[in-house]
């Protein structure tokens, strides 16, 4: 079995509102899977179904090849977007309690907490109350509590919100090392730059439906649309621009004064780029020639816009 989690035609209604409509997902083992979508798309509902906080009206979910059951809870770790801790409880006590709720024994929980607290350099917080900590500090403890029981599947919902860049980086490293140690991770966010850095696979959910999923690199390839950027050095740029306009489809151009370079963005009819290169090399010095790869952000926006147009 290569998938840690498989969702099959999952549908969920709340009264008249459909939160999820026939959503199917396959989340490969030992990978970081980005669950993307605008606010209110149904991401949180899907995550809650995986955590068995709510249950689907239709469809089924399989965990590690078996139908999802309450005993799987101890193999899933969940860091919700709306997260907090008991304010008047001490850090250590609280972490122990939450770990025990996940099925760890007190002794084992204590041992692992010590390890993590040292790793994140928060050992001296043990007897502090949550209300004495800053938001970022509380977030660190939440992260520890989420991963402490060494689940097979980790679900992070906006894990970096509330962290300063240094700590965000620290957490990112921890997430990557967890993945390297064999954990599968679902990563829900609408911040695309972290998707590019972390995710191997993505699924895009929009208006309760999955509209796109797959390997991020494959998706990017599919979304390439033969747009090339060229940097040129030429004495007579006006002539060159009008010549290019005649022969090719010029999307935009600008002149970089510091580099003394003319930048063109061209739309080619196919991947074939020899014609334009041949043409340009006879007219100017070609400093750079590169195909633009769409960012996750571009894909996100474009897919949703297309979907909205299709709906109208």
């Amino acid at each position: 079995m290569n998938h840690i989690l498989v969702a099959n035609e999952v549908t969920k209604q709340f009264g008249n509102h459909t939160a999820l409509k026939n959503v199917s997902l396959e989340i490969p083992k030992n990978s970081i899977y980005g669950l993307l979508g605008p606010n209110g798309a149904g991401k949180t509902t899907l995550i809650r179904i995986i955590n068995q906080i709510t249950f689907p009206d239709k469809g089924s979910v399989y965990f590690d090849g078996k139908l999802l059951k309450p005993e799987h809870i101890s193999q899933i770790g969940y860091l919700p977007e709306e997260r907090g801790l008991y304010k008047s409880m001490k850090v250590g006590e609280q972490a122990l309690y939450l770990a025990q709720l996940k099925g760890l024994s007190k002794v084992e929980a204590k041992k692992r907490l010590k390890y993590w607290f040292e790793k994140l350099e928060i050992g001296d917080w043990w007897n502090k109350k949550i209300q004495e900590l800053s938001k970022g500090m509380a977030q660190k403890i939440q992260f520890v509590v989420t991963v402490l029981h060494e689940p097979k599947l980790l679900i992070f919902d906006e894990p970096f919100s509330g962290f300063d860049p240094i700590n965000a980086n620290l957490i990112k490293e921890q997430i990557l090392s967890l993945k390297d140690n064999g954990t599968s991770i679902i990563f829900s966010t609408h911040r695309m730059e972290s998707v590019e850095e972390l995710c191997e696979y993505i699924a895009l959910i929009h208006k309760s439906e999955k509209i796109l999923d797959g390997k991020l690199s494959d998706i990017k390839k599919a979304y390439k649309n033969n747009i090339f950027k060229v940097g040129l050095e030429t004495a007579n740029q006006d002539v060159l621009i009008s010549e290019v306009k005649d022969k090719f489809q010029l999307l935009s151009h600008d002149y970089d004064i510091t580099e003394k370079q003319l930048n063109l963005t061209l739309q080619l009819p196919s991947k074939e780029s020899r014609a334009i290169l041949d043409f340009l090399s006879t007219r100017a010095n070609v400093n750079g020639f590169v195909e633009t790869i769409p960012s996750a952000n571009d894909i996100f926006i474009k897919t949703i816009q297309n979907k909205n147009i299709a709906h109208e």
Partner: protein
Amino acid sequence: MNKLPLIIKREYLAKVRNKSFVIMTFLSPILMVGMILLIAYLTQLNDNEKRVIAVLNDSGYFSNEFIASEATSYVNFKDLTLAEAKDSTLSLGYYGLVYLPSEPNLEQVAQRAFFYSKEAPSSTVLDKLENTITSRLRQERLRELGLSPKEYAEMDRSYNMNIETFDGLQNIKGINEIKAIIGGAFGYLIMMFIIIYGGFVMRSVIEEKTSRIIEVIISSVKPFHLMMGKIIGTSLAGITQFAIWIVSGALLLFIGLTIFDIDPASLTKGGMAPGMEGNTSVDVDAVTQNIQLYAQEIFEIPIFAMLIFFIIYFVLGYLIYSSIYAAIGAAVDNETDTQQFIFPVILPLMLAIYVGFFSVFSNPNGPIAVAFSLFPLTSPIVMLMRLPWGIGEGGVPVWQLISSILILIATFIGIVWVAAKIYRVGILMYGKKPSYKELYKWLKYSS
């Protein structure tokens, strides 16, 4: 693995370690006992205050009827006009002035007599004056009728009806009041416990919502377990608090009474209506006989059965109400939004107490008492108020007791089911305050 004990333990410790809870637990008995001692002290102080009352006697009747007592003394004014007497009373700082005008006979003197004072006179003073004049009037009337005071006393001897139940047991007056107090105490205890600790459950649910820990927790445990753990943990904390109150309150009261040397009997005497003391002329034998009868009657109250039923009704009643409180807490975001939902919850509790005091005590087996001791939201209180009158013959019929408990259990299951549904939807809802209509919609959501 069952996580319920873990949750109960956390909820219990969170409650017991809470600062305001600790302060409440240890301060309340001190405050209560302090209050009782203060009242006792002030009552004694009040009794010690001496009042001087001036008497302007133009009538020629009354000569030595106004006898000074511990609290009051009299000063006779002579050869003064009424206006002068009023002025002197005021300037001497006396409490008031009794004016007995000159009239042809005593009846008319009494008719036209006045008491002048700066403010409205205290009822104790007025009663005393009225009693003095009444007894003088009685004397005069007896003299006119030619009766001796001894003959009159013979005539006035009060009569007590002999009372007995049909099976020949001797009955005594006043025992119903004692039963009412016992029943009332049990009922009141349940109501207070529900309101205080139900509120704690509700606030604890709101706290979990506002601190946003709820989703972390319910990804590990079922919402139903969390709710029940919370209710049980909080009630254990409540029982701890009550136990501390009872023990420390009794201890403090004992110490206080010893230190201040206050006779507990004087407290009850203070509550008696003035003038009643004089009329109680029961001989000692009758008193001891009565005490024996009271003791016998109190032993007749099924204390053991009452305790068992108290626990049954207490547990079921508390579980019903606190799950409603938990559902309310889950439905709202902050405490100010709870008002509209809390009122309908407190209403049946208040109703039960009122029905208990006004209907059950006068007629423990009347239709109203029966109806309210079967209705599940009032039965924990009303049935306990009926129980001191016994179970079975003469008291609560066994079928009523059984059906009341069965109805209560059925309601408990129904309410907990409904509350758990509202709870599990509500804890994940943030934002606007839901209406009753929306709560009803939540019930129809599949889990």
